[in-house]
Every structure is written in structure tokens, then in C-alpha cells.
């Protein structure tokens, strides 16, 4: 976790370019056919249960099994690797980039992600806090809960197989929670952001600075 933050530089970066550039990769090997063009607007999944699929980005066909891959974020298609259209690609090959406009809340979260210790999802699954942690959160709120390395904090649930997940970061309070019970989290996405106790004032400073600067100019 960084101790020093150059707020002016950070805020100036987000003000001049308030976008995330989200790269989209081939989900597996196969022949790829693009469904979007550069400059096109794309939508993220929507609906109360995210049941309405996002915009179709590309089709990938492996052994006569075509699969449509949809956008997971809204924005504009900034770049398409068009020479790959109709070609066989390897899993993980970059296919396009989506330029996603950031909201103020997302900017704060992005800055947090640079300063918090992020604890990531080990598998694509649904997650819920362990019973002990949940009851402590219910009583005091997450930001009053200090967790230690080796503590069982979360249960990962996949096909009714529950796996305890042990925290492996530095001691701190649960500052940000990035998952919701019942909503699937992709492998490698952050589950929680943890803040060392002595760094809490820094976090508060970030919120104050971003809100003040953004409110005055946006």
C-alpha cells in the first residue's frame, strides 16, 4: 500500500482522461468473428438480475460450438484488432478495447484500489462472509472489523460446495466490499479492500479531496 499520494497528479490524470480502457480477450481458442466496429457504443448487462445480456462483441467458434461473448462494461469500442477477424486465435489474445466513462464513485474506487490491499476471488463463484465475520459486520459495520492473516473470512460457494477462504494479506480493517451475496464474482476480481489501521486517515483524505475537486469542476 502506498504511503504517499500525489493528489494533484492523480486528480489531474482522471480529469484529463476520465476513462477506463478495458481490454477484451479471447475466452478460449477458436475462430473469431467480430460483432462490433470501432466507435460503436456498447452496453453492459442490465436488468434487475443482470439477465439482459450486454452488447455482443464477438463470436468464437471452437469445434463447431459457436459462443457469443458480450460486453461486461458500457462505453465505446476504442480499438478492434481487425486483422484477427475470421482468424483462429489463442485463448487470452487481445481482441479489442472498450473506453468506459468513469463516474465519480468509480474514480474514488479506482484510487482506493491503488492504496488498499486487495484480496481477490480465487475462482469464479459466489461469495459470502463467514458467519463470524458477518455477525461482526451486522453489529458494528465492515469498517470496524479488523482481520488478520490466516483468518477465515469468506466462504466461496460453487454448485453447493462451500470452501472457506482464508485472508492472506496484512492486518487491517475491511474498507471496501466488492461483492454482493448471490452475485457471481469472476476469478481474479477483488472481493474486499483492506486498509491498515494507521492508513485510515489517508483514505478519508482521498475521499475528501476527490469529492471537493470533482464537485467544484464537474
Amino acid at each position, binding site marked *: 500500500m502506498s504511503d504517499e499520494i500525489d493528489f494533484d497528479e492523480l486528480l489531474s490524470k482522471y480529469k484529463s482522461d476520465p476513462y477506463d480502457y478495458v481490454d477484451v480477450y479471447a475466452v478460449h481458442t477458436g475462430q473469431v468473428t467480430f460483432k462490433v466496429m470501432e466507435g460503436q457504443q456498447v452496453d453492459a448487462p442490465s*436488468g434487475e438480475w443482470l439477465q439482459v445480456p450486454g452488447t455482443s462483441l464477438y463470436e468464437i467458434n471452437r469445434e463447431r460450438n459457436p459462443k457469443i461473448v458480450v460486453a461486461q462494461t458500457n462505453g465505446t469500442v476504442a480499438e478492434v484488432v481487425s486483422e484477427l477477424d475470421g482468424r483462429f486465435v489463442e485463448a487470452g489474445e487481445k481482441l479489442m478495447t472498450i473506453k468506459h466513462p468513469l463516474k465519480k464513485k468509480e474514480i474514488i474506487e479506482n484510487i482506493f484500489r491503488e492504496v488498499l490491499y486487495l484480496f481477490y476471488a480465487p475462482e469464479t463463484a459466489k461469495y459470502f462472509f463467514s458467519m463470524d465475520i458477518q455477525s461482526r459486520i451486522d453489529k458494528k459495520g465492515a469498517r470496524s472489523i479488523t482481520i488478520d492473516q490466516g483468518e477465515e473470512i469468506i466462504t466461496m460457494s460453487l454448485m453447493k460446495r462451500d470452501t*472457506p477462504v482464508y485472508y492472506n494479506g496484512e492486518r487491517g480493517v475491511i474498507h471496501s466490499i466488492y461483492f454482493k*451475496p448471490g452475485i457471481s464474482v469472476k476469478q481474479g476480481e477483488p472481493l474486499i479492500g483492506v486498509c491498515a489501521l494507521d492508513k485510515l486517515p489517508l483514505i478519508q483524505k482521498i475521499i475528501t479531496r476527490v469529492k471537493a475537486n470533482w464537485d467544484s469542476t464537474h
Partner: protein
Amino acid sequence: MPLNSPSPQDVLSHLQRLLTCSNGLYDSDAIVRYGAFVGSKIESHEFLPRAMIHARTRIESLAASGKSVASGTVILADTMSHSKGRFSRQWHAPTGGAWGCMIHANTLLPQSRCFVPLAVGIAGCEAVREMGGRMAVLRWVNDVLVEGKKLAGFLVETYTEAIFGEEYNLVGFGVNINNRQFPDELFDSAISLREVLGTAADLTRFTALFLARLAWNFGLLYYEESSALRGEGFSGNGGEHLLLEQWRRLSDTVGKRVVYGFDVMRSPQYQGVVLKMDENGGLVLRLDDGFEKTEYSGEVRYL
């Protein structure tokens, strides 16, 4: 003397009988060899607070002395005082039921692990049917129902032992066999095999049958994994995984209108019609707005 005390030989006898049921599409001998570790050691107790906790203690104490627990060890208890279901739900475990857990050293590949809950549910449903409960069906993921009431429930917990870091699946099972009384809150939703048959069932025989079916289904997991790794695909019709094929035969979930929730009792989320189970065991639902959604976790209740 515990009431429920099948021997490993009882389990093996039932498992060997399954060899005769081969349809020629797969190698039954190989499946039995893969699965025969289940029930190779059985501990029967008159009372335990909770079999899962006992299993964890057993794993830890053996690891502390530099040993490993035998994969396939089954822990049974005639009654349990602190048994539980998912989340914070209570599981009532009085005398007369088949309560316990099986310890499985997790040597499966990640893509096979998600089928473990299906394997135990299928084993439970098959054993209930073989004992005479012909109407038993599976509700996704692995609840065994008769006439819409729950006869058996299963819970799989992964546990990583602290000294050597070995990972185990603790396969918990609770089957209402001869237990007659249920707590008030379960009165309308639970049923025992005794009620279904109209007479008491042989608890030890049921447990041996169930463990033999569990051995077969774990054998299938390894067998299909091996087949896929050889590049031969799965062995069911159209290249389907044999466990998924069997689940489909035993389940009445597809076509039903359901309410879905991660914790459906406490927080029901949405309603829809079940279209199918996908190749990974996920449930494909059509919501009322016509869109489809696939769930890989959570639970459903029929409407």
C-alpha cells in the same frame, strides 16, 4: 453399540453388484476401481456434535502426528446435536436417520470438483429408490424429494488442513430414514423413508447401499476425468458427462417454475422456468421478461 454400523465389506458387496449393471458403454471395472476408496474405512458413533467437525479434528490430529487420514473414511453418528445445513440453517438429526460425512482427499481437477455435490445427490436418490422409494427425485442441486418433501440433504465443504496444506472435500449427508418427528418448522416440508414405505427401513442396509452408490459416482468422476484427459470426451450419449446424464434421469427440476435465490429461504431473488442443466451443471432459467440466466450456485424452490 451404534445403530448405524455398516462395514466396508457391506459397501463393497453392493458396489460389486453394480458391476453387473454395466450397459457396455463404459468400463464398469475401472469405475469401481476408481471409486472403491469410498467407505474403505467406516467409523460409527452413537453420538457426535457434528460429523464435519469430527472429520476436521480427525484430519488435524493425524496430520499433527505426520499421517494422513484415509481418503474415503466415513464418519457416522446415530444422533447429532449441532448438525447444520447451509448458511446458518439447522439440520435436525435424531435417532433413526443416516447422518454423517465422507472425507475425500481432493485429487480431482477443478473442472470435476463442481460435480461432487451432484455425485452425492445422485447417490442419495438412487439409494432411496433402491430401498423402495421409487418416487424419489432430485431438485437442483442435490436435494432428494418425495412428494415435494425433503427426504435427504447434502452439503459439501472444502477443508484445507493446516500443517501440510492438503485439501479435502467433506461430503456431509443427512437422510431421514426412520426418524418420525420433525421440528414444527419442517413439519410440512420434510419426510422420512419410513413414511414413504409405510414401514421401518433397515438403516444399516440403506447406509451401505448409499455409500456403494457414492463410491460408484465418485468412480464416475475420476473415470470421466481420465477419459477427457485422454482426449476421448465423456462417455454419455452425445459426449455428455455420465453424472449429468444420470442427474437428468433422476431430476424433475427441468420444466418447473421456480423461485431462485442464493439463500432462497431468506432472500428469494427471482422467478423463472428451468430450461435445462448446462454441461457444467449450471441451471439455465428463462425469466419472465424472456431473457435467460444461468446459475452455478444457489438454490431453487418449486412454485
